[in-house]
């Protein structure tokens, strides 16, 4: 102890750390009660100075240091809280304060430590903290809240119900940071509450790829269990179709898949398909645990024909370290018993190397045995020959057993194997010989008739072989077949009688058996020998042998005392014995979920959750439906709708402010008319704080016919409502009514409507989420939408300013994403809005000095370009600063990067001295900030000039509602999101300033925001029309979070970089 200078977390060191930490916190919040210690610590003196300094950078440094010090204290506290509860309690108030810290990292780690303090008194405080953190704006804090749930639950299981509420709330979280942690908490606290998953199922499937790897493992395991309870078995399919199916699943032609599937009686639930499809990319993960998780998912829930794709990935894992190999091989061993075909192509990957550890070797051997069939057995046997000679004798012995198993399983090679094994009997190594004897014994037992020769050969071996098991096996074999080798058997017994006393116990027992059997069949020759042996056995040291001797003597030697049994002695000893079954130790392991600890141990581990059998009839799939309606509703620009209809008030009140736009017109009116269901809906909407308006539908949607009925009502309702709204909707933009109609029509599908096609579709089919369906639904919707808008033509006044695009301006890949999401049949409409006016910035194109008097400036007027809709319009102002006319100004020699295009202005015939002219051109920058180079020529001269667009000019503003914005943002997470934290003084941030600053940089549209501290801007790129969503979120204190969501990550990050300095300027 004393010799080690690095003792960590000792009492003394820890004590100091506590002081530091308290000091640090108290510096942050001067009201803190722990400031006492500060004076004598010099180090903290400068910390204080730094904090008080005017320089932002110094303040920042100080803050960072505090974070550092705090963390040390945290480590200490967590470790010792349980032992020194009183001391720990002192710190609680500090943490409570830290929970309100403007820095999300401090909030998070405060929660982390608070929840790690295992002191029962603070349970209520923890509960409160968790609840608050679960609603935190920072996903990182919410992630920590999910972790804290598990800790609190293990500290006080009484809190279960409350915690489930928090879990329920967090499950709805759309952040990829939270998903893994909350599912982990779910698995810990309430794995049986599968009902909590329904509404989040699709979201989890869709987020899965972006979740961090550890979370992926947990989610996949949970979803496997979920799928087994909610979907019907996909395994009933006709085997004949397997190949056929495989080929089209592999191709991405979903359309074809769909049509093909319809022919069959079994149709996979689209949600089931969604899970299988969305986990497939994860087979390529670098994390072995993720790959294994996906593999077991495919094994347990995918159609048998599709599980084949996992073998390649599992084989890949065999290159990994020995521990991974061990687990993976075990799982392959289990799989290969049931479905040989899966791993057969990879047979050679399981060939054993002499350098493999023995446990790996035996597992590989196991798999090779499972894979053996008529076609490959000869290759395998050749390979086994090498193994038998291995220096690793344990492995050689295992190989011999394997050969025995192959011999029994494949009748064609039984004789070959047997003769091979007999050859091994002359092996120099005793273990090999012994193992061969044992295996031969088993083989002969199965077909004893024709093998007299082998038995004779083995009888000879008794002279040389010493391994007890082998000797015992030979003796047993001779005894069993004593009538087939009548001459040899008594001779063997004679020899054995001689050596009886020096034999191993195991052998002695078999000598007794042999004696008894011979006595019964050939008593003339062996009576005396047997009695001699029985006498020897009577006085043996081992009681087992003495007992056996006594037993045998009573049974076979007739005397007056012997009972009725001795009559049956022959039947007892020489009964037909069933041949042993040589089977794999992995035979029945698949009743454990693959990839689990229980499977590895082949025993139920604590906390193992049984994988349920497929239900006979699928539970109502509409429980997952919620989100279809849910999201569809989010797309209605409800902010306006809310104000229109007083009947909706009830709903909007029950919602949290930020989600207020959830309430959509139809649900509102429905509640007004359907009084019977109102109560129920009201209740549920109250407890579900977010997405509330849509929840009731899910809950009441247990019976699909109810849903049908309601949908029908709603349908008629919508129309009626349309009329009633007439007068109020004057200001509503065209897209609004469009989408709200689209909205209602997506629900209408199942109901009786004018659309005959949608009528024919059953309720269940309206839930189909395969792409074909999606597309079709979209068409339906579009048609419906036009119909509806024809009917409701009076509803809106087309407003001239926003240019409604004829088609949704989503990039193709985004559409693909949407389809992948399968959440709904409608997509939001993006329309370009008018740019917010900002003073135009001009850039120098050609300075008058270098242009020989011709000066040119360019600017971006932020108008849609008239020359082409993929072009950015550029205004060029030309000035003649000379005293002569400049003639024929035109553009030549465009040197544009590939893909870029440019529409030049018409040549200017002449420009008067001191004259100025403004022309416009269009450049398609292909959504990049690459420079467009060209020559600006006059009659006499040519000047090379460049236009490089600021990234903000590559955008066009988009008008969208807050709800749409959130919805789109939800789809552009993961790689598509970049963010930065900006530090600046809060007084510099009235909304108008922020707005101005952002718009100055980027040509974006302002999204109306429900919260004062969050500003949202939406734009699309000019060339590809990809959305660019900018969020500026002001935090407490002096930080702001800047988030950009776009598919064009490059532009996104450039824009982020440009916005950062602008926003952080004082």
């Amino acid at each position, binding site marked *: 102890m004393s010799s080690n200078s690095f003792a960590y*977390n000792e009492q003394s060191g820890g004590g100091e750390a506590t002081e530091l930490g308290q000091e640090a916190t108290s510096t942050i919040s001067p009201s803190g009660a722990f400031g006492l210690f500060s004076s004598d610590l010099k180090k903290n003196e400068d910390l204080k100075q730094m904090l008080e300094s005017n320089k932002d950078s110094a303040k920042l440094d100080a803050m960072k240091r505090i974070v550092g010090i705090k963390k*040390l204290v945290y480590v200490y506290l967590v470790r010792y809280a349980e032992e020194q509860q009183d001391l720990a309690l002192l710190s609680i108030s500090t943490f409570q304060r830290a929970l309100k810290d403007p820095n999300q990292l401090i909030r998070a780690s405060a929660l982390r430590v608070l929840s790690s303090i295992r002191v029962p008194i603070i349970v209520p405080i923890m509960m409160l903290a968790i609840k608050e953190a679960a609603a935190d704006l920072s996903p990182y804090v919410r992630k920590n809240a999910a972790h804290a749930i598990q800790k609190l639950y*293990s500290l006080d299981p009484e809190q279960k119900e409350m915690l489930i509420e928090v879990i329920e709330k967090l499950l709805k979280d759309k952040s990829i940071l939270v998903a893994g942690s909350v599912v982990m908490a779910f698995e810990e606290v309430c794995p049986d509450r599968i009902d909590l998953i329904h509404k989040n199922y699709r979201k989890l499937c869709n987020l899965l790829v972006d979740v961090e790897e550890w979370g992926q493992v947990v989610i996949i395991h949970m979803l496997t269990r979920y799928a087994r309870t909610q979907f019907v078995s996909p395994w009933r399919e006709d085997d004949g179709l397997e190949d056929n199916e495989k080929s089209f699943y592999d191709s991405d032609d979903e359309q074809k898949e769909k049509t093909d599937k319809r022919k069959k009686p079994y149709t996979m639930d689209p949600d089931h398909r969604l899970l299988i499809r969305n986990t497939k990319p994860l087979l390529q993960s670098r994390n072995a645990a993720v790959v294994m998780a996906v593999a077991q998912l495919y094994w347990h829930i995918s159609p048998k024909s599709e599980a084949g794709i996992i073998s390649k990935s599992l084989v890949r894992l065999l290159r990994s*370290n020995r521990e991974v190999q061990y687990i993976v091989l075990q799982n392959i061993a289990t799989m290969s018993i049931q479905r040989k075909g899966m791993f057969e192509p990879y047979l050679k990957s399981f060939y054993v190397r002499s*350098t493999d550890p023995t446990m790996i070797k035996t597992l590989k051997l196991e798999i090779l045995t499972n894979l053996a069939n008529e076609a490959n057995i000869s290759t395998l046997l050749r390979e086994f020959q*090498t193994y038998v000679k291995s*220096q690793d004798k344990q492995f050689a012995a295992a190989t011999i057993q394997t050969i025995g198993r192959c011999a029994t399983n494949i009748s064609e090679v039984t004789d070959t194997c047997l003769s091979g094994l007999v050859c091994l009997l002359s092996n120099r190594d005793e273990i090999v010989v012994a193992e061969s004897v044992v295996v031969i014994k088993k083989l002969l037992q199965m077909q004893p008739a024709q093998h007299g020769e082998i038995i004779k050969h083995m009888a000879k071996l008794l002279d040389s072989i010493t391994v007890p098991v082998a000797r015992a096996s030979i003796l047993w074999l001779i005894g069993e077949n004593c009538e087939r080798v009548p001459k040899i058997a008594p001779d063997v017994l004679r020899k054995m009688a001689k050596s009886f006393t020096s034999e191993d116990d195991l052998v002695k027992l078999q000598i007794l058996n042999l004696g008894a059997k011979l006595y019964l069949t050939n008593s003339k020759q062996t009576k005396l020998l047997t009695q001699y042996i029985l006498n020897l056995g009577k006085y043996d040291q081992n009681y087992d042998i003495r007992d056996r001797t006594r037993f045998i003597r009573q049974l076979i030697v007739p005397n007056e005392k012997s009972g009725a049994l001795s009559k049956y002695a022959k039947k007892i000893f020489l009964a037909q014995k069933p041949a042993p079954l040589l089977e794999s130790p992995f035979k029945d392991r698949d009743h454990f979920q693959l990839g689990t600890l229980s499977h590895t141990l082949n025993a139920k581990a604590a906390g193992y959750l049984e994988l349920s059998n497929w239900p006979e009839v699928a539970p109502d799939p509409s429980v997952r439906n919620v989100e279809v309606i849910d999201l569809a509703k989010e797309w209605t620009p409800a902010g306006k709708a809310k104000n229109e209809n007083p009947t909706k008030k009830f709903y909007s009140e029950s919602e949290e402010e930020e989600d207020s736009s959830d309430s959509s017109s139809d649900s509102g009116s429905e509640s007004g008319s359907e009084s019977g269901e109102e109560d129920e809906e009201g209740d549920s909407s109250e407890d579900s704080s977010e997405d509330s308006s849509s929840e009731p539908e899910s809950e009441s949607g247990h019976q699909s016919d109810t849903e049908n009925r309601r949908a029908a009502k709603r349908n008629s309702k919508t129309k009626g409502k349309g009329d009633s709204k007439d007068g109020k909707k004057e200001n509503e933009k065209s897209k609004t009514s469009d989408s709200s109609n689209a909205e209602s029509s997506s629900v209408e599908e199942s109901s009786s409507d004018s659309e005959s096609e949608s009528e024919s579709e059953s309720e269940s089919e309206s839930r189909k989420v395969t792409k074909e369906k999606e597309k079709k639904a979209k068409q339906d919707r579009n048609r419906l939408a036009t119909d509806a808008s024809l009917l409701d033509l009076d509803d809106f006044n087309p407003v001239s300013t926003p240019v409604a695009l004829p088609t949704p301006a989503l990039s193709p890949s985004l559409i693909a994403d949407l389809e992948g999401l399968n959440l709904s049949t409608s997509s939001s409409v993006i329309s370009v809005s008018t740019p917010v006016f900002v003073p135009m910035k001009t850039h120098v194109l050609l300075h008058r000095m270098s242009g020989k008097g011709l000066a040119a400036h360019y600017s971006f007027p932020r108008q849609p370009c008239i020359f082409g809709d993929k072009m950015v319009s550029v205004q060029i102002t030309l000035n003649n600063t000379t005293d002569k006319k400049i003639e024929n100004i035109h553009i030549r020699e465009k040197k544009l990067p590939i893909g870029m295009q440019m529409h030049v202005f018409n040549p200017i015939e002449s420009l008067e001295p001191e004259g100025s002219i403004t022309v416009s051109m269009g450049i398609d920058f292909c959504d990049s900030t690459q420079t467009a180079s060209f020559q600006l020529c006059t009659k006499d001269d040519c000047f090379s000039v460049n236009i490089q667009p600021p990234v903000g000019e590559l955008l066009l503003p988009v008008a969208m509602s807050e709800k749409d914005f959130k919805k789109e943002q939800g789809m552009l997470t993961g790689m598509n999101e970049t963010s930065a934290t900006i530090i600046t003084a809060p007084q510099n941030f009235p909304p108008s300033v922020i707005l101005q600053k952002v718009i100055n940089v980027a040509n974006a549209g302002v999204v109306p925001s429900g919260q004062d501290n969050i500003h949202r801007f939406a734009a699309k790129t000019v060339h590809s029309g990809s959305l660019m969503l900018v969020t500026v979120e002001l935090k407490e204190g002096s930080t702001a979070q800047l988030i950009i969501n776009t598919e064009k*990550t490059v532009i996104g990050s450039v824009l982020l970089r440009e916005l950062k300095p602008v926003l952080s300027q004082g």
Partner: protein
Amino acid sequence: MSEVVSFKLSVRQSTGHSNCGVLTAFSAASASVRRGPGAESLTGPGLGKMIHSLFLINCSGDIFLEKHWKSVVSQSVCDYFFEAQEKAADVENVPPVISTPHHYLISIYRDKLFFVSVIQTEVPPLFVIEFLHRVADTFQDYFGECSEAAIKDNVVIVYELLEEMLDNGFPLATESNILKELIKPPTILRSVVNSITGSSNVGDTLPTGQLSNIPWRRAGVKYTNNEAYFDVVEEIDAIIDKSGSTVFAEIQGVIDACIKLSGMPDLSLSFMNPRLLDDVSFHPCIRFKRWESERVLSFIPPDGNFRLISYRVSSQNLVAIPVYVKHSISFKENSSCGRFDVTIGPKQNMGKTIEGVTVTVHMPKVVLNMNLTPTQGSYTFDPVTKVLTWDVGKITPQKLPSLKGLVNLQSGAPKPEENPSLNIQFKIQQLAISGLKVNRLDMYGEKYKPFKGVKYVTKAGKFQVRT
């Protein structure tokens, strides 16, 4: 039975004094601490933390470090591990998963150290194994090596790392880039500064990466020289049988990258022949969809060294085997000697030089000594482990290297059943044996021009010649 008991006792003793006392504070407390509701709840359902505790054990069986993420588990749980180790005889054969009455032990063996984790409930074993390897990788990354000495020297950092990597037994921050923002790796200069100023190694920046959606990259990376280097390393796994024909061969490749680029570069790497890559696993930074549709690796790279992809070139393709071996190893019946003659030559080497050739042979146990003459390079024979190592060096086709001589056997013992197999190592620079070629590397999102470089190497992987 008595053996086991005495063994346990000896372990206790050895951990008692030689256990370097790092954690006496921890371990002394450990026995008494199991109380409170936590201890009761251990048996209840759903109360498992994924990883409960971690013990690091060196080769001589000393537990030299322990870390608990929840209540403390007594060191004695490791006795079950020692028992299994005893049974396995060889370290390689210690089962990675051991079941004990109240816990499960999942262990990995890395660099002569055992990482033994204590689990209480059902968990996917690979999850734990993968995590433990990630821990070992992190140590390697931080201290240059993952050895007992390095861990003891940096014990404070080790604890800080473990604290950050696991929260309540669930992995929290395992990306090296995030960890390095949170906890600075040690340097000599810093440790001097720290000991003077008394400050810690805890990073003074906020780990912004942890909050972003690109958790593998730090924000605000700056370099004066912007460089991006890629190493395409391919290893040939092969089993060659006695007659020289190939039983099994496949190519396992990786692309390791060293990226030192400022800002947020967005790279895309394309290949001349991407179809070659049969089975690929990706670093999380790679956009899967781009690969699926265009066969282009598009990614925002982590900062520094990392493995971009690893791939397998399917065994269906013919694999060129760059070397051949002529061998004749024989042991005479009833005599105490044998002959050993091995010659190596180049074959299908695409005109490149084969370098760094080493031949390793595990000779049978009856071999006492070897008396050999190499025409090139040098050889060693370890009479204890019976391992013959012949360091050949470069192969020149004009004069093929060979190793010949006599083998001395233990007299009286039966001659070995099987000839030993030869494990061969070699290296070929500037060649990817599969023919994989990088086409181009493009960078978007940043304006500077980076230096770019691609290097190809082919090596022998598990390359075995049966004799």
